[in-house]
């Protein structure tokens, strides 16, 4: 298991988990806000739709479904 920080809380996840799966498993469904302010989360799961974008280690707009977790990774959703 490895530890990541999701919205400033430590969570423990299995290695090779995607960032998207870690976020959903934590009960968070607001990955991002759409241009009109709607809550959005993953749709395609394969890096095509860009709905699952979050901030990873300070870099915004990263696709969480194609990114694997890494120890100490900091993820911020709904920015």
């Amino acid at each position: 298991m490895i530890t990541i920080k999701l919205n400033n809380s430590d969570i423990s996840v299995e290695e090779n988990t995607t960032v998207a799966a870690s976020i959903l498993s934590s009960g968070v469904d607001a990955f991002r806000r759409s241009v009109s302010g709607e809550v959005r989360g993953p749709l395609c799961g394969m890096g095509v739709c860009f709905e699952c974008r979050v901030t990873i280690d300070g870099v915004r707009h990263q696709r969480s479904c194609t990114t694997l977790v890494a120890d100490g990774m900091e993820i911020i959703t709904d920015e």
Partner: protein
Amino acid sequence: MNRNASDILIVGGGAAGMSAAFAATSGGGTNITIVDDNPHLGGQIWRAELGKVRNADAAKLIEAIEAGRIGVVNSAQVFAAVSENKLLAETPNGTTEFEYKKLIIATGARERFLPFPGWTLSGVFGAGGLQALVKGGLNVKNKRIVVAGTGPLLLAVADYLNSKGANVVAIVEQASARNINRFALGLWNSPAKLIQAAALKKRLFRIPYLTNTWIANVTCGSPRVSKGVTSNAAIKSLSLNLNRNGKTQTIECDHLACGFHLVPNTELAALLGCKIEDGFVSVDGFQRTSLNNVYCAGEPTAIGGVEASLVEGKIAGYAAADNEERSRELFTKRDKTRRFGNALNTAFALRGELKTLADNATIVCRCEDVQYEKLAAFDDWRTAKLQTRCGMGPCQGRICGPATEFIFGWKPGPVRPPIFPVKLENL
């Protein structure tokens, strides 16, 4: 910038790409590279489950590739072509330039999504989309899930979710029972598929398979207690209204997994200038595109499933390694998989009623939040795009393009680089 030079470069590490790579090694002494956007080989159908590919055929192929003289670059997204014979890909370590003598495009397919009221709500995923998330570690144990849309993928997804302890409430299939039965009868020609289908049917027999049925709309059901780590974590259940033979039926669930068969990923082929016909990359018998040194295999040439991808990959791999005789030996097999693909696409063709699922306020372009009523006034994709920004967000029309093509009959516009959004410093 990092550089990589290959005799044969393969874009896509799924069934077609891996099959092509392995066949290409038959030439001997050839320098082969697979570049893939996933963290692990396998593509979509053989997507790794927490880092491990479970399918035995896939595992064998991956092992052979890892043991062979094939370079693999994972997590690399091809986004542009520079001069002839060079592609650029964004990787976690910046941009890499891939030079090639021959190129095999094996970029696979994505799901087709159709807009309906509520399709942007949290908890609504693609069918393959939810499967991919579960393979990435999402726990769906005891979740009530409806799998909907069209195509054989729905059955595979339901079976997979079921095996992970989900409570699959129903499979909602828009195609008619008549079309599906006719398709199933056609499987007598391929015993392996028939055995597969029978085993699947046995495993899924408790789950209602509602044909002639589709999702009319989705609303948030009763809120459930949040166990999340942030204040915005109130995950709600979903209330689905189904249109079933003209009658409405309501189902409550936690997740909806909804996809309408597949659309090919042709962007790279189009960017390079390969001839595209009726939405698919044109190829000759050797899987060669209209460009002499560029081949294409698998779903971008026709939606045909994993068998088609494997055999087309082999044909392309042998041909690219100047081993055309071995390609030729596989033509009959390829033609058979194509017939299967055609039957599949006929059986699961979209019914016209699905064109009117969206109401005026339904968002069609999810990147730019363009509603149906804003689009209905236009005659073509280009004008709609310029006037509403439909298709101008980061997905570049990959989701709303196939939807508006079906709903309004709009033909997609030309492809321009970068074909995926890239960090400024990597351009």
